[in-house]
């Protein structure tokens, strides 16, 4: 629908710089997640796109046109606020049609669109209720319906799921993704939860301290973070300093490990190697596979049972390596084990 572009956008609040300089290029119909720790500038970025805040410098372009002087009301964007901001004094129906009512659309049309959107969000039987009488997920849906009914060309959502419990969260995620794909609206949503970003987005923009740290597809971010910060934030648990012995071999504290050669890194370089906890296979010492590369022996130091998965901390050569397994069998703390990791699951980042 609309292509959104931030060009060297900067935002200062008085002496404080919230956004240092961000360039962002969002394709029409794309679903982009803004990911980053609290206070990094996610909300501020959204607000600038919506026009609720004016950039200190730089420009916001919609389909290539600078929108600096376009008022909020005229930008045809939609925004779902973190806490929904439903109007507590209006029924679901009134909340949903608010955007059309203020535009003075004919009753007839408003009603049609209302029916349509209520079907989509499945809130038909709640139409006469007030927000206080709804559950979190229902409120969420009202907030989305209220925004979608105006057919915005850019949809923004600010941490839309932060206050829901795990179960509801999962449902809502699926719902949002389906809807967005179906309607094809350019969508930007904010989260500080990497799982959410990964699950929902076409591309993820990681922001640290008002700067864009990385922007790419979820898998790319996950597998090829361009810095340890990003890696760490994306949930990587095993990051170790190492030295390249050859293009495909590195030496870390727990031993020598084979890696996939990576362009630009030469022998002797100081690097970080990153082993995703779910990329490591764990065997009781007795069952260790033969002839495989990259075997590390260690001992189980701690175990956590998460229901769906079990997480072990294995101490190996002075390092603690976290390993995640789907919970099929349980190994005991203290048991000696062998870890195995494929070279193509070891990522190397220049130090």
């Amino acid at each position, binding site marked *: 629908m609309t292509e959104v572009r931030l060009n060297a956008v900067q935002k200062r609040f008085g002496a404080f710089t919230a956004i240092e300089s961000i360039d962002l290029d969002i394709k029409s119909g794309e679903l982009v997640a803004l990911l980053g720790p609290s206070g990094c500038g996610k909300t501020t970025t959204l607000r600038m796109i919506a026009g609720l805040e*004016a*950039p200190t*410098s730089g*420009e916001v372009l919609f389909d290539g046109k600078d929108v*600096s*002087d376009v008022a909020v009301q005229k930008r045809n964007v939609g925004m779902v606020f973190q806490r929904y901001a439903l109007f507590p004094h209006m029924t679901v129906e009134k909340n949903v049609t608010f955007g059309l009512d203020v535009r003075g659309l004919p009753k007839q049309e408003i009603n049609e669109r209302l029916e349509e959107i209520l079907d989509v969000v499945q809130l038909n039987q709640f139409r006469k209720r007030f927000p206080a009488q709804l559950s979190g997920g229902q409120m969420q849906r009202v907030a989305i319906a209220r925004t979608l009914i105006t057919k915005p060309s850019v949809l923004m959502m600010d941490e839309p799921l932060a206050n829901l419990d795990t179960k509801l969260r999962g449902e809502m995620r699926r719902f949002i993704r389906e809807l967005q794909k179906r309607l094809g609206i350019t969508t930007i949503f904010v989260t500080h939860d990497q799982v959410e970003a990964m699950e929902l987005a076409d591309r993820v923009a990681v922001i640290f301290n008002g700067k864009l740290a990385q922007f790419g597809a979820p898998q790319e971010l996950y597998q090829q973070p361009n810095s340890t910060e990003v890696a760490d934030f994306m949930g990587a648990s095993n990051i170790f300093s190492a030295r390249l012995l050859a293009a495909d071999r590195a030496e870390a504290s727990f031993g020598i490990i084979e890696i996939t050669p990576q362009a630009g890194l030469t022998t002797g370089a100081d690097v970080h190697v990153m082993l995703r906890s779910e990329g490591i296979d764990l065997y009781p010492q007795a069952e260790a596979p033969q002839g495989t590369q990259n075997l590390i022996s260690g001992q189980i130091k701690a175990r956590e049972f998460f229901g769906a998965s079990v997480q072990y901390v294995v101490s190996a050569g002075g390092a603690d390596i976290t390993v995640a397994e789907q919970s099929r069998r349980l190994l005991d703390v203290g048991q000696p084990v062998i870890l195995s990791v494929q070279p193509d699951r070891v990522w190397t980042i220049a130090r």
Partner: protein
Amino acid sequence: MARSQESALREKLWLWLQLSPVLLILAVLFGGALVLAVVQSLGFAPWFGVNTFPSFQYFGALWGSASFWESLWLTLYYATVSTVIALAMGIALALALVRTFPGKQLYKYIYKLPLMIPYTVGIALAVIMLGNGGMVSRLAAFFGFISDPSQFPQILKTHAGWGIIAVYVWKQVPFITLAIYAVMLGVGRETEEAAAILGANRWQILSQVTLPQIMPGVVSSTLICFAFNVGAFEAPFILGGGFPDTLPVVAWRYFNDADYTLQLQGMATVVSIALVAGIILFTYLAIYRRFERKIGRN
């Protein structure tokens, strides 16, 4: 380009436009009256045929007279004593209101009554109750404690001012109670519960947890009451003990004097009232701000 200069300017203009009506009334009328009072007190009153601006003779005459200082003392005495009493009672009542007790609903109705009715009613009640010919005096006579109104301890029309103080307290306790109670509701009871679990007894909870948190309410309600008490006219006029009067009454008498030049003296008096109220309240606020900084609010 961020947002164009023009639209930034429009924003600014719109902002001040929204503030302007309030600003206008306060700056032009309130500020104007204040300035007028000050220039007059400094000798600018061509309409009375006086223009010695700027001269401090009126302040000189005023501050040079012993009676001014007596009046000032009296004004501050009434204001302070009644504010302190009202504050103590207000806090106690607000604390009581947060708990439940039988008849609370009815009580919550009644305690606010004085807040809703003018001071003059309070004065009338003081007259009928506390005067030498009043109800209390009559009851005393009925029980044989006194046989003549003059034997009844003088409450009204004395410089001890218990009548005035009674009226202020009667009227202001509900106000202070309400203010503090509201703040308390906002603070919630969680921190008190936390303190109880940590082993604090009732007094410790009150002094270390509750009171510091309701300080904003305490401060702003005392501020308002004290300022009012300093400037109040009707109660000290009707119930006061005659010369020396409180400053507002002194000013009123100047304004009503046959001698028109005393108007300027009156202006000097009211400006002095404003000054005194200002100085005291700012000192109070400054102390409070220090306290606030000390406890980490800003």
